[in-house]
């Protein structure tokens, strides 16, 4: 800081506008892309979503000759699992960033500046959610398609596990991977807004997605079969699975239920956001 600013003479502002939902969304877009953590998380998500299917395809291709008939049959029953392999890992990057989008503001104190500019607060929650969902969709729809086509191209050289996009349910499952990631981001953002703490938010998300589902195995089988399919992660995953057994939801009810969980998380966040002190 070398220059001394003059004490007087701040120019007046010619025109004065109001806060609108669209303007808050533009502001949230600026906030999102101006942070390094955002760029890195999204780069990781893209690399995982595209890279893992390619890696799996390459490994399967080279090992195919050594696989037992049983193992081959197993892969052939779930031919799309190669193409959607990245979604299961990139969901973690998407979820962590979803939590950070809001908790990063609480940990740094930025939330006070945000709420001074938009004291009604709810437009901030809607803008953050909408902008983040659009960014994830814009990156993940191409990523899952590239992951599908490149992994299929690699497998095609060995003429194994070919699934056409026109085949029943394939396009839905491939694009469903992107939709699942969008909703995962929204769900994580809602949890971040409720918990307001980065570590707590990520831990809560991990508990719901990665800790509770395996714990269900402790329950009697009949209970587990009845309950597990309704957990957020399992309900959501049904949209990018090509086949469904008796104890998993169909794609449409599954993704609607997952969207319902997102709506509940956002609704709780909205109520708390307006009521709580900052």
């Amino acid at each position, binding site marked *: 800081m070398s220059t001394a600013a003059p004490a007087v003479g701040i120019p007046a502002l010619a025109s004065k506008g109001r806060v609108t939902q669209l303007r808050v969304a533009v502001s949230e877009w600026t906030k999102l892309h101006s942070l390094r953590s955002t760029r890195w998380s999204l780069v990781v998500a893209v690399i995982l979503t595209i890279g893992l299917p390619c890696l799996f395809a390459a490994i399967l291709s080279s090992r195919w000759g050594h696989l037992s008939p049983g193992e081959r049959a197993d892969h052939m029953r779930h031919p799309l699992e190669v193409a959607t392999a990245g979604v299961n890992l990139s969901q973690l990057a998407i979820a962590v960033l979803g939590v950070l989008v809001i908790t990063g503001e609480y940990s740094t104190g930025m939330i006070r500046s945000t709420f001074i500019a938009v004291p009604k607060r709810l437009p901030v929650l809607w803008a953050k959610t909408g902008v983040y969902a659009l960014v994830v969709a814009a990156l993940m729809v191409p990523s899952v398609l590239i992951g599908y086509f490149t992994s299929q191209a690699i497998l095609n050289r060995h003429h194994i596990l070919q699934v056409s996009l026109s085949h029943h349910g394939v396009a839905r499952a491939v694009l469903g991977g992107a939709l699942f990631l969008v909703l995962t981001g929204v769900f994580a953002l809602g949890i971040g807004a409720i918990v307001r703490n980065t570590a707590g938010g990520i831990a809560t998300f991990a508990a719901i997605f990665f800790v509770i589902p395996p714990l269900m195995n402790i329950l009697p089988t009949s209970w587990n079969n009845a309950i597990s399919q309704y957990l957020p992660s399992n309900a959501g995953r049904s949209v990018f699975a090509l086949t469904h057994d008796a104890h998993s939801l169909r794609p449409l009810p599954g993704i609607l239920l997952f969207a319902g969980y997102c709506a509940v998380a956002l609704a709780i966040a909205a109520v708390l956001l307006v*009521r709580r002190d900052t």
Partner: protein
Amino acid sequence: MIEARGLTKDYGPKRAVDDLTFTVKPGVVTGFLGPNGSGKSTTMRLALSLDGPTAGDVTVNGKHYRDHTAPLHEVGALLEARSVHTGRSAYNHLLALAQTHGIPRKRVDTLVDFVGLHDVARKRAGQFSLGMGQRLGIAAALLGDPATLLLDEPSNGLDPEGIHWIRNLLRSLAAEGRTVFVSSHLMSEMALTADHVIVIGRGKLIADMSVDEFVRMASGNAVRVRSPQAVKLSELVAGDGVIVASPEPGTLEIRGSTAEKIGETAAAHGIVLHELAGVQASLEEAFMELTRGEVEYKSGEEIAA
């Protein structure tokens, strides 16, 4: 214009702000004084709808802050606590705030230059010194060309040149007819900057008056007299609410009377006076005098706890 009526805020069992009623008028710099922990920052957070009051009410420019449709044009705020994302550049921080109101980029550039952050605007705010952080906060406060300014300890961390700058800035903002409400624990700073003071201690209102009145009230009309017959004079004027102290031989400090009365008494008794003058306490002394009880009470309570 800021109006608080019966404003009260509890955090758990602790009452941070206790039945505050005051009005901050436009066109003057109003200092908001109180010892640390007296509730200044809480009052500002209540005025900005960051926290909700337990009881009572505070409005800014006639409305609750939350009800303004263009809050940045109504109120510019600088909070004591850091309120910037450390990973974002100063420029992008200001841009994101500006965009919520459709304020053009040009305005952001103007303010970056105005507060003297031109060379570091693209640096991440986490790398800023305290003084640079304050300048960024002041730029954010002025972004919307607001009618009212709420500034919590704006001179914190500024170098002498920066303090001089902020003092002139506050006075010129008030001269333009804006409401300027600025908290500080530096009384000497407020003496140079403020026209009016609101003093609180332990969340309660202690004083709400002009700086001149404040000093006069706290110093209690002391009159300083030098006389070779000081002892005789003190016997003549003492009593009936008049208190005489003698800080050194031949010098008296008389409270509860006026220079006129003392001069007339001296003349009537043929007493020679070498000096007869009203004494004014500094704002610092006046403040210490006023808040002493509050501060001591607090320390005692802390020891007991």
